[in-house]
């Protein structure tokens, strides 16, 4: 145990008051403090301040504050969203979206996805060139007339439902793979190990959106928050 001086006390104080010093350090500090009125007073003052701060506790939030905050925020257009668009989206959310959503139930989307899958497999087996194909191109005529009209109507919401389906991801991956294969080699058949390789690509689409530039991020606010009443 070594003797310490006043100027060596200060760096130890936070840890000392948190009780985090080693046994030796603590003993050294206390040895000094016992013989030094200045440091003893300093530490006593600090303890007093900490006690008062702790005992002060938290003050109560005004009753209306939270609802005022929610009123202020949910009622207005967030940054990056023009006011007209915000109003439009509000109208969309309340009037149109529920109808569209009822049409776009998961089983409907799943059925559609399965149809797309089987059609694409038939086409592929028939030696059809999939290089230039997009997912939408694979939809048969009757699906196209019935579905794409709704797809166009539903806009962003459709994309959300659509992309969230695992099976759609797999189809997209498959398509991508075929496209890659047909551009790299002449073989149209996918290799099994390619599935794993291209998996991250499809996931990247839905990956943390907060890596986007600010403008894109703000765009995500395009669906406005509904009225406070429904929340509370």
């Amino acid at each position, binding site marked *: 145990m070594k003797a310490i001086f006043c100027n060596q006390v200060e760096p130890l*104080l936070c840890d000392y008051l948190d009780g985090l010093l080693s046994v030796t350090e603590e003993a050294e500090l206390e040895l000094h403090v016992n013989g030094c009125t200045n440091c003893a007073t300093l530490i006593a003052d600090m303890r007093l301040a900490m006690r008062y701060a702790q005992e002060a*506790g938290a003050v109560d939030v005004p009753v209306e504050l*939270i609802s005022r905050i929610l009123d202020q925020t949910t009622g207005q257009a967030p940054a990056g969203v023009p006011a007209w668009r915000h109003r439009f989206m509000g109208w969309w959310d309340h009037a149109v979206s529920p109808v569209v959503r009822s049409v776009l139930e998961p089983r409907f989307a799943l059925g559609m996805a399965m149809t797309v899958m089987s059609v694409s497999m038939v086409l592929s087996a028939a030696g059809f060139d999939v290089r230039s194909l997009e997912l939408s191109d694979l939809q048969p005529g009757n699906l196209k007339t019935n579905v794409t009209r709704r797809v166009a109507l539903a806009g962003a919401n459709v994309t959300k439902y659509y992309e969230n389906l695992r099976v759609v991801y797999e189809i997209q991956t498959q398509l991508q793979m075929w496209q890659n294969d047909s551009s790299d080699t002449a073989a149209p058949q996918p290799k099994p190990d390619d599935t794993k390789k291209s998996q991250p690509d499809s996931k990247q689409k839905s990956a943390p959106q907060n890596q986007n530039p600010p403008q894109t991020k703000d765009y995500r606010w395009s669906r406005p928050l509904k009225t406070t009443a429904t929340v509370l």
Partner: protein
Amino acid sequence: MTLGKAPAVSAPWEKSTRRKETGRGLEPDTILVERCLTGDQAAWAELVRTHTRRIYNLCYRFTGRTQEADDLTQDVFLRVYKTLGSFQGSQGSFTTWLTSLTRNLLIDHYRKHKKERADVSVDDEDTAEIAETNVTFTRPDVVMIEQEGREAIQAAITRLSPDLREAVILRDMQELEYREISIVLGVPEGTVKSRINRGRAALGQILRRRAASSGSGREAGI
């Protein structure tokens, strides 16, 4: 009683934060923020409800006035709402991000109203003045000692310089880690600790002298 300059004992905050932040899962707040950004208003309401108390208290402790705390808390959440997209969960907790934003608003507010409050602000250099200013915190009609203590600490806090004030509030009242405070204030942990030390020392000095002066005028002081 004066404290020496704190040596740079800790690493720059960039180093210490990144080490801690990586490799931990998404915290509940980060998930809430993600939900907010998809337009989930219930998530936004939950986020507001979760953090209002802490932010209001931070604003109140810093300004010492309930009305200002009220206004500032609203400003904070308005700004959060507008800039939520810039929060990156990978770069620190939501609490740290929110506290930084609040702190910036508080400092802006302080600078704007500095002239209005030309009264003494206490730094470690001028703590000696406290004895001369001889502020009496005690009121004969105050019966509740506990309440008096709360008023005393608040009165003392608002006499600290903003640097020391925010450091002490964040540590001793908001109970943030040194690492978090260093992110919020944008200074190394060593500086944070040094400010906390000086803030606590100044506060304790004010409170001790107050207790002594009230003890002399009134036998039943704290």
